[in-house]
């Protein structure tokens, strides 16, 4: 199933599992609530760039706007959020209107690979957990580079491969990968080495990278707890098989994190050149 359709279908259900921020959490000590940890991930990535009330930021793959509202609340920056999910954009716009932030934050249904913004329009391009859904990451990075002003910052975090995956790995894991695809859509993960090289090739300099797999991993227990806690409400959005599939996906991801096949990374870079 195409990811756009997938995300339109699951967005409402995911707010019951992942919370208002449709992304992983950063657990510095492991005792935080999921909401605290998802905010902490936004804060950890924001710490990699100077962001203040004069900053104009593009949020690529904005979900339902959770990170945008957090970022704006902490810094006052202006934000354009884009997503291919019409349902995500609809919910983000509703929240934006409710919060009275439409003068500083706007959400658009656009493609990250051809976003339609003018060259150099942004100080920061923010790519939080959306790059794994895009097969052509080189094009994502080139498009991000295009819309950044010289000296602007790319901030990206996502699931990563901790090592190259062989064809035999894929063959062995094919049943688990099918379960994950049903829950999360079509995904293609890459290593931090890949992201660093691709960012450099796109014209980014001063690249920083962090492996934060350990801090991210408790998210999966929280998601699974939320599946159990909200099972009755989830039934209004997903069929029983999809709910079970999501719970199983949490276990599979934990196994893949434990076996050091999957992890989570953060990459930051500065747009070089004129």
């Amino acid at each position, binding site marked *: 199933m195409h990811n756009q359709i997938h995300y339109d279908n699951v967005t409402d259900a995911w707010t019951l599992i992942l919370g208002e921020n449709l992304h992983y959490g950063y657990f510095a000590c492991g005792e935080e609530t999921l909401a605290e940890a998802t905010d902490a991930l936004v804060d950890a990535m924001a710490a990699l760039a100077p962001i203040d009330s004069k900053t104009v930021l593009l949020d690529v793959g904005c979900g339902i706007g959770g990170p945008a509202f957090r970022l704006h609340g902490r810094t006052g920056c202006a934000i354009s959020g884009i997503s291919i999910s019409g349902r995500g954009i609809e919910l983000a716009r509703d929240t934006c209107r409710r919060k009275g932030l439409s003068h500083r934050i706007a959400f658009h249904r656009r493609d990250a690979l051809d976003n339609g913004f003018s060259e150099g329009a942004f100080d920061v391009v923010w790519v939080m957990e959306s790059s794994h859904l895009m*097969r052509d990451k080189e094009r994502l990075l080139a498009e991000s580079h295009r819309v950044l002003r010289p000296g602007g910052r790319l901030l990206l975090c996502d699931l990563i491969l901790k090592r190259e*995956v*062989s*064809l*035999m790995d*894929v*063959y062995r894991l*094919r049943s688990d*990968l099918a379960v994950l*695809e049903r829950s999360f859509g079509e995904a*293609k993960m890459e290593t931090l080495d890949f992201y660093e090289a691709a960012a450099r090739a796109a014209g980014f300099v001063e690249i920083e990278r962090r492996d934060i797999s350990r801090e991210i991993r408790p998210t999966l227990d929280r998601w699974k707890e939320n599946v159990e806690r909200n099972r009755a409400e989830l039934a209004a959005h997903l069929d029983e098989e999809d709910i079970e599939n999501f719970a199983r996906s949490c276990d599979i991801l934990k196994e893949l994190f434990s076996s050091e096949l999957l992890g989570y990374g953060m990459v930051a870079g500065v747009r070089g050149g004129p």
Partner: protein
Amino acid sequence: VDEVNEELENKVKLDKARDTLLYGRGAKIDSMTLVSLIVAVEDALRREHGLSVTLANEKAMSMERSPFKTLGSMIDYVTDVVREAQKE
């Protein structure tokens, strides 16, 4: 190939030609799709010919020139594996 193509978008559908790339640089499909093709062939051999063979074994996957590089090399490899299985 037909079975796998049913799941693919038009732009990445596999041509039924020996030189169609399946694996590595230039291939239109990802490794998950290639694995689906391998499993579809294993299933077809079991279902239609009563042959229980595993095409994706460590030996095949670690070959310097992967037998899954093109549709042609895969056909040759499957033919060899089937011939060996029929001897047993």
